[in-house]
C-alpha cells in the first residue's frame, strides 16, 4: 500500500511508544540504505514507517574502557573515530562515501548477508547490544543477538539503542574480499581480535561474515589457535575448520562453493597477518 504514515520520533520513549501502538506492522528504518531500495521499487509496500534519525541515538562516545556507539551513528562516524581501528577499517570498506554518510551501525546488524561487514567486526570485538523496550533496558552479547537468517533476539516492541565495544590492547585485523575494491558486497569478510604474550596467543576471536545466515564466530578455529604461536600447521588446521564451519549461500556475488573455499583462504590470511607475516595462499 502507499505509505500512509511516516513517523520521526524525537526520543527513544516516543519511538517505543509508536512501536507499542502500531506493533510489528510498523517498519523501522534508520539509514534507509536497506529498506528504501525495496520500497522505491515497489517490492516492499509498508503502510506505516518509523525513521530513527531524530531519536537521539547518533552519538559515539568513549566511556572509560568502552566505546558507546549509538545505534544510528553513521558508518562515517565510525571511520572518523580513532579508539577502535578495526571498526574504522570495517566501516571504510563498506559501501561508498555517500552511503556511509547515511548507513548506521545499528542498521548494519540487520543487514542480510552478504552485508554486515561492520557487524562482523563488532562480533570479533565481543561487542554488546543495548536494547530498549517497554520494560526498560537490557544488554545482550552480540553472540546472542542473531537467532537465524534475518531473525534476532529482539521482541517486536524493542529497539537497539546502542552498541558497546570494549577497548583493549588486542591486536586486530580485518579482511574483506569483494569482486572489486570499492563499494562491493563481500564474497567473505573476516575480522579477528587476538591478545598475544610474546608470540603465544592468549585469546583469539574470529568472526566470519557473508558466508553464513548472519555473522558467526569460528569457534573451532579459535580453539586450535588459542595457546598456539600461530605456527603454519596451526593456521592450516584453523583455516580448514573455518571452511568446514562456513554455512554460505549462493547468490549473484558468489557460489556457496566459492564462499566456503574463500573462507579458508581468508582465515589463513588473517591469521598470518596477526602473526606478523604475509604468507602463501591456500
Amino acid at each position, binding site marked *: *500500500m*502507499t*505509505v500512509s504514515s511516516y513517523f520521526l520520533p524525537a526520543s527513544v520513549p516516543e519511538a517505543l511508544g509508536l512501536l507499542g501502538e502500531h506493533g510489528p506492522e510498523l517498519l523501522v528504518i534508520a539509514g534507509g540504505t536497506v529498506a528504501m531500495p525495496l520500497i522505491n*521499487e*515497489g517490492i516492499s*509496500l509498508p503502510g506505516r514507517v518509523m525513521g530513527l534519525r531524530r531519536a537521539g541515538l547518533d552519538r559515539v562516545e568513549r566511556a572509560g574502557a568502552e566505546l558507546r556507539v549509538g545505534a544510528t551513528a553513521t558508518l562515517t562516524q565510525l571511520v572518523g573515530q580513532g579508539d577502535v581501528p578495526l571498526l574504522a577499517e570495517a566501516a571504510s570498506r563498506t559501501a561508498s562515501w555517500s552511503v556511509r554518510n547515511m548507513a548506521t551501525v545499528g542498521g548494519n546488524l540487520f543487514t542480510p548477508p552478504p552485508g554486515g561487514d561492520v557487524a562482523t567486526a563488532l562480533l570479533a570485538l565481543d561487542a554488546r547490544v543495548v536494547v530498549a523496550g517497554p520494560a526498560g533496558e537490557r544488554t545482550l552479547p552480540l553472540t546472542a543477538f542473531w537467532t537465524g537468517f534475518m531473525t534476532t533476539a529482539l521482541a517486536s516492541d524493542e529497539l537497539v539503542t546502542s552498541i558497546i565495544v570494549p577497548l583493549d590492547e588486542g591486536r586486530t585485523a580485518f579482511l574483506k574480499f569483494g569482486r572489486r575494491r570499492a563499494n562491493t558486497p563481500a564474497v567473505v569478510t573476516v575480522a579477528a581480535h587476538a591478545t598475544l604474550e610474546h608470540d603465544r596467543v592468549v585469546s583469539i576471536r574470529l568472526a566470519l561474515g557473508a558466508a553464513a545466515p548472519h555473522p558467526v564466530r569460528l569457534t573451532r578455529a579459535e580453539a586450535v589457535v588459542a595457546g598456539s604461536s600461530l605456527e603454519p600447521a596451526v593456521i592450516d588446521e584453523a583455516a580448514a575448520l573455518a571452511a568446514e564451519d562456513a554455512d554460505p549461500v549462493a547468490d549473484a556475488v558468489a557460489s556457496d562453493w566459492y564462499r566456503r573455499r574463500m573462507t579458508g583462504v581468508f582465515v589463513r590470511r588473517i591469521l598470518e597477518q596477526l602473526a606478523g607475516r604475509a604468507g602463501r595462499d591456500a
Partner: protein
Amino acid sequence: MTADLHVVGRSVERNDGIGFVTGRARYSTDLVFPGMLHLKMVRSPVHHARIRGVDLSAAERVPGFVRALTHQDVPHNVYTILGLIGVEPEEEFVLAVDRVRYVGEPIVAILAETEAAAYEAVARVHLDLEELPAVFDMDEALAPGAPIVTHWGSNAFSYDGDDHRKVRLGDVEAGLAAADHIVDGEYRSGPIEHAPTETTGCVAVPEPNGRFTVYTNTQALYFSLDNTSIILQLPGNRLRFIGGMVGGGFGGKVDVIVEPLATLGAMKTGRPVRYVYNRSEEMQVSSTRSPWIIRIRDGVMADGTIVARRVTSYADCGAYSRQTPYAITKHAANAAGPYAIPNVAIDAWCVFTNRTPTSAMRGFGVTMASFAVEVQMDRVAEVVGLDPWTIRFRNAIRNGDIKPHRKPAADVALVETMQAAAALVGHELPAELRAMTSAPRDQQDGGR
C-alpha cells in the same frame, strides 16, 4: 594547409557539454506534466506458462488506480522491430495474450495517479498461470523433444526457408583434407546487460489537436515512431517524437518497448503517461547482448596459410528474436574474419530459449566473431610455430580477394594498419612483413 583547418586537429568543445556540466540538460525521464499518470507493468514471474486468467478486481480497488491496458486494448498487438526492414516473422506481443515465454514478459499495464499506487495495483493483480517446461540452453533447445518457445513449432529462426544462415565459398571439406594442420576452437560468451545509467523511458502527452507528443530516450527515434504508428494503427502524422538526449544506450534503447504503451495510455485516458523502467527492470527485463557459441575448424598449411575455415555459430535470442536475426546475418558476413581464405563454410543459428530476449549491443553479431577469430588466429600461430603477427600478415585480406560471401575486397588496409600498429608499440617487423601491401595478390612483391 593546416592554417585552413578550423576543426580538424583542434580540441573542440561539445555543443551539449554546457548542458551536461550544469545539469541543465533535459532527459525525457526528467519531465513532469500536470495530471501525469504512471505506468507500471504486471510481468510474468515464471519462465514459461499458459495464461489461464488475469484478475484485475483487487488492483482496480487500489486508491489512485486509473485503468489497466491488456492485449485487447492494443490495436496491432505485435512488435515490428525488424518487420520494418523486411525481416519476418513478427512474433513478439506488445502485451501477452495466452502464453508467457520469459520471466518479466509484460502482461498488463497499470496506469495510476502515483508510482506508489501503480506499484501497489501491480502487486494486487492476480495471475492464473499454468507453468510449462522451459529451456535455457541452446544445444537443448535445438535437440528433438525440446520445449518449443515460438508459436510456429521450431526454436530456430528461419532464413529463406532454412533453419540457419549459410555462407559458402569454395570446398571446405577438400580444403581441410589438404591441410597440414587442423586447428579447432570453441568460443563462448555470456549475455551482457548494457546497464545505462539512465533507464529506458518515455512520457507520452496528448496534444489539444489530437496528436501525441512522445518524449523518449530511444536511440532510434524514427524506428520508434514507425513502430508506435503501426502498433496503435495511428497515422504517423499524429505522432511527434522528441528525443536525442539519451543517458546511455549502447544498443539497449533500440527495441521500442515503452513508447507504444505509453502512447496508448495517453490515448485511453487523455492524460500524459510516463513509462520508465526501474533499475530491476533495466537489469532483468530489458534486452542484453546475445550469448554466443562459436566453433571454428581451420585447415592450415605448414607456412601458416589458412586454406579452409569452417565456422559454426549459435546466438541465443531468448524468448523473442528482436534484433538477433539481423545479428546472425551480420555475423555470417564477417565470421571468417578479415583474412583471405579460399574455402569457407559458415553456418549460423538464431536459437530461441526461455531467456530474456537478446538484441542489439555495440557491434552485435560481429564483436563476438572478432573475439573468436582473433583467439583462433593465435591458436593457429601456436600450432604452426609462427608468431601472431606473421600469421595475420600472411593471411590478411588484400584488394581483389574474394570474401566468403563472394564479394571482392576493395579499399582494404589491414596490412598497413598492422604495420602502423607495430610501429606504435615499437615492435620490429621482419622484412617480409614490412614489404607487404594491400595491393592485389598478383601484384605483390613476395608475401603470399
